[in-house]
């Protein structure tokens, strides 16, 4: 990154943060007088007309979208956590719908389901449309800095429907603004079965240079009409059709060093600037472990943010998608491919011996009794699958590694161009002779010797 552009980004972020703090929400007086009734309040007096309706067409509400870059999908069908299964999340919104789960060992119950993070009230659920759905949107969970999470709990109403509560208090409504890191992380940090399990990154000043510079999630993931841009993570399929990349800010020749700039054509920024990853490394949905509360969870091997190393592969932003592998497509020969780092994850679950496909799981039965096959049976019933033969098997998943960005600890010449370097040149398509040349200190010796002299 050029020093000047870095400074400019920092100053811009600081100014934006300053504006966010200083600027008072124009609807404050109206909310103080009339209270907050939900999205209708936001749409009143011409403030945010049509916004609620617009939100219903986003990934955050639908949990699905067209997915043009993944192979093996049905054309015209939308995919996302609404209906996808893989071995980080063996259920989805459909088969593992939010419900109350009874534990026979204790007689206690708890509410659980994949759609517990959906910003509706569960009566109006994933992908619902119409006025009722518009009125069910929980605007404040993303926009309020003073949201009381004691109110965001699931409960059964008088008619037995499972409802997700919301904080629609005046106090919460008066604290609205641009989403802060907390607003995003409320849901995004606990995905996959616990804090920092799925993606394994913590967005803090200690772990990410952007956070250190005061930037918040939506500085990069800046929305347009509530459509939020995402990167090309091989395992994150749904998108609002907008994309974000490092180059949106760090354009052209981002380094002072010409040698580093030359790498940019074939090496993604993340490869050098995200040298570590974290989170779950493996999970077993066929074997559930009983916790202290006597409920069961899939057995999971967990690591901290920055505790594991990534795997490197060519990636052309299209995805190989098979029952036992979800990961990047691309090659050295393909000009559109670059080398990216990935968090590698392995998951064990049940596959259908007849079709070879991964089977979905409703978590309620195994959560209550540890019986994983009962979860498969329940999901099959929901999906109308009558015949299947479950056999355990493994799936490898490459997750995009796009956070935990560092400037100080970025990889430099010898981290890759040495015999014990992080890149496996042979696996990346280089010949033995090329590898020998690429892992020799002669490539950078004079340059680093000079740098060393300057540093000391």
């Amino acid at each position, binding site marked *: 990154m050029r020093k000047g552009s870095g400074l400019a980004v920092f100053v811009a972020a600081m100014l934006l943060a300053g504006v966010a703090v200083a600027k008072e929400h124009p609807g404050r007086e109206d909310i103080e007088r009339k209270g907050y009734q939900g999205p209708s309040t936001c749409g009143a007096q011409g403030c945010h007309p049509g916004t609620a309706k617009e939100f219903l067409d986003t990934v955050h509400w639908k949990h699905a979208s067209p997915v043009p870059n993944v192979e093996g999908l049905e054309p015209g069908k939308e995919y996302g956590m609404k209906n996808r299964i893989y071995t980080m999340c063996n259920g989805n919104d459909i088969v593992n719908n939010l419900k109350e789960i009874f534990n026979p060992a204790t007689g206690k119950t708890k509410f*659980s*389901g*994949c759609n*517990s*993070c959906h910003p509706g009230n569960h009566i109006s659920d994933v992908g619902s449309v119409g006025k009722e759905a518009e009125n069910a949107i929980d605007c404040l969970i993303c926009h309020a800095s*003073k*949201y*009381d*999470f*004691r109110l965001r709990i699931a409960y059964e109403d008088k008619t037995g429907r499972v409802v997700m509560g919301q904080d629609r208090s005046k106090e919460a409504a008066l604290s609205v603004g641009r989403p802060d890191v*907390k607003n995003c992380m*409320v*849901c995004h940090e*606990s*995905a*996959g*079965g*616990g*804090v*920092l*399990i799925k993606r394994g990154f913590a967005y*803090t000043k200690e772990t990410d240079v952007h956070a250190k510079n005061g930037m918040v999630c939506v500085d990069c993931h800046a929305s347009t009409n509530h459509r939020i841009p995402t990167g090309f993570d091989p395992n994150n399929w749904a998108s609002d059709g907008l994309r974000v990349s490092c180059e949106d800010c760090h354009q052209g020749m981002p380094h002072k060093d010409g040698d580093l700039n030359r790498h940019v054509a074939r090496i993604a920024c993340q490869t050098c600037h995200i040298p570590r990853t974290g989170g779950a490394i493996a999970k077993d949905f066929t074997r559930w472990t009983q*916790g*202290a*509360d006597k409920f069961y969870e899939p057995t999971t091997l967990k690591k901290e943010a920055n505790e594991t190393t990534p795997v490197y592969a060519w990636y052309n932003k299209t995805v190989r998608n098979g029952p036992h592998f979800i990961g990047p497509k691309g090659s050295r020969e393909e000009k559109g491919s670059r080398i990216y780092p990935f968090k590698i994850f392995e998951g064990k679950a049940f596959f259908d011996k007849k079709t070879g496909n991964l089977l979905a799981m409703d978590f309620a039965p195994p959560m209550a009794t540890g019986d994983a096959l009962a979860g498969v049976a329940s999901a099959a019933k929901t999906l109308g699958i009558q015949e299947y033969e479950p056999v355990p098997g493994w799936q490898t998943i490459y997750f995009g590694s796009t956070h935990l960005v560092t400037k100080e600890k970025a990889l430099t010449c010898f981290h890759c161009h040495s015999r014990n370097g992080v890149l496996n040149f042979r696996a990346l398509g280089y010949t033995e002779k090329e590898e020998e040349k690429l892992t020799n200190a002669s490539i950078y010796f004079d340059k680093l010797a000079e740098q060393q002299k300057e540093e000391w």
Partner: protein
Amino acid sequence: MRKALKVKVAAAMTVLILLLAGGVAMAEEMKMVGDVVKIEISGPDAKTAKATLKDTKTGELVVITVNDDLTLDKFKDHRIVVGDEIRCKYEVKDGKNVSKYFRKTAGC
């Protein structure tokens, strides 16, 4: 020969001391899983809080001092409340169990 023996004994002693010191240092970091039974925090500007956890293995009540902003914020807006199960690491400093890691075990 005698000198060599002395060097070996000194090296062995050094290794032993280092191992013992390491053991002591490791013993200071405690780990536990427990349910929150009480949270004491003095208002929205509080810079510290006390959370009492009931150890799920022993049933013992352990009072944890929490100073990190992220966890304090979760107490303030009630993302962590009484009844939540917590995975906690703490160090004993000046008679206090100071949190180094305080996370809910649950996710989605």
